[in-house]
């Protein structure tokens, strides 16, 4: 199963990109296109999730999953912060910034994970997209609270509308939530004519995107001056512990094995789009080389290759036991 997951074209294109970057090839996906594919993936995930929720209606399972997701996103930064301070030897600001990334989620990890789960017959429920959207922002709030405790406020360069505004109206949050709502409104009938773009093309587009992710992650790893053994080890152990916690909580709350695995993937994944954008504004002293190095260059590749199969394995084995 894990091996099958590794030989999916999406994963292979990620590895191709990473190998090309390590070999110092000049291969590059133009950034404007890579960004557009990221937007496309969010639109597609949102629309399809919304469509499924329109189909099933608001069930208690949705509310439970949503509550689990919110709790995870709010609370996961706390133990992460502790570990980053004590084991990672990071200062308060950097530890808080990194902790926020690990409490939040990665949309592309979720997308790739859902495809894998579907392929092995553990398709997660459609409403997990809503959980994904719910989990993007709470961790940012916890992270900012951790960073600012007992610190003088008032930065000349702080965003005018306040950080909360930046957090909730971050482009990727708006697009994911908006597409989800459009998916709910449009329903199956409204989605049908746009399905050729937002459904049929999804996996192929993911291949192009992951080729670029491989290039970007590997180049970032090579350029990086911020990672050391301690932080790299944390970038591997945080997803494992968070993911295991997510799966366990999901199963304990009564979710099906596929949805619990998806919750584990969300908990184990680390943001590299929404959270860095806010952190650059909110905590400019924090080192982007560190938080993007950890989330994008270490945790993302780990989750894509080993993490996802592991969370699925945990979910399928714990299911029935809990």
């Amino acid at each position, binding site marked *: 199963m894990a091996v099958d997951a590794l030989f999916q074209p999406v994963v292979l294109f990620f590895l191709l990109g990473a190998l090309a970057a390590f070999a110092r090839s000049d291969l590059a996906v133009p*950034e404007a296109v890579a960004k557009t594919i990221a937007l496309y993936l969010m639109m597609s995930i949102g629309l399809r999730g919304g469509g499924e929720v329109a189909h099933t209606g608001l069930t208690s399972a949705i509310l439970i999953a949503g509550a689990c997701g919110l709790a995870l996103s709010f609370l996961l930064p706390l133990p992460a912060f502790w570990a980053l301070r004590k084991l990672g030897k990071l200062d308060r600001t950097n530890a808080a910034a990194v902790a926020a990334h690990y409490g939040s989620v990665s949309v592309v990890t979720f997308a790739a994970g859902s495809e894998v789960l579907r392929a092995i017959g553990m398709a997660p429920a459609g409403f997990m997209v809503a959980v994904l959207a719910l989990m993007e922002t709470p961790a940012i709030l916890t992270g900012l609270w951790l960073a600012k405790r007992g610190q003088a406020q008032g930065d000349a360069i702080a965003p005018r509308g306040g950080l909360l505004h930046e957090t909730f109206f971050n482009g990727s949050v708006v697009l994911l939530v908006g597409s989800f709502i459009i998916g709910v409104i449009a329903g199956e009938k409204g989605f049908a004519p746009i399905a050729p773009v937002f459904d049929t093309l999804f996996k192929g587009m993911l291949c192009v995107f992951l080729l670029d992710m491989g290039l970007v992650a590997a180049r970032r790893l090579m*350029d990086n001056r911020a990672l050391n053994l301690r932080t790299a080890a944390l970038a591997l152990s945080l997803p494992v512990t968070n993911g295991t916690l997510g799966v366990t909580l999901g199963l304990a709350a009564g979710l099906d094995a596929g949805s619990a695995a998806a919750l584990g993937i969300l908990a184990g994944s680390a943001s*590299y789009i929404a959270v860095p*954008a806010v952190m650059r*504004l909110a905590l400019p002293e924090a080192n982007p*080389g560190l938080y993007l190095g950890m989330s994008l260059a270490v945790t993302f590749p780990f989750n894509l290759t080993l993490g996802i199969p592991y969370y699925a394995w945990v979910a399928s084995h714990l299911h029935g036991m809990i």
Partner: protein
Amino acid sequence: MTETIIRRRIEVLADEPLIPAIERIAASAGIEHYTLLPTQGGMGHSGRWRDDQISGATAKVMFMAVTTEDGAERLTDLLSPLLATHPLMLLISNVEVIRGLRFD
């Protein structure tokens, strides 16, 4: 022969998300007009960066304004405390503009 006068060209290299704040600070220094120029990558104390739009967080933009000696000084005074803590680069140089056009 067209007569020219000397003005100051201020350039500020900053992270894209900080640009609205720079615009605001410039306005508070009395500098309303500016041009934004794209960048592609670079290397500084904090390492190598590339215009990596996936996480647009590390892309940088060059803010450029032509202003008077006084305007330049006001903006420099407002920005210089930030230069120590924030990832900014500030450059000032002389530039000639055509006399009679507004650059203040």
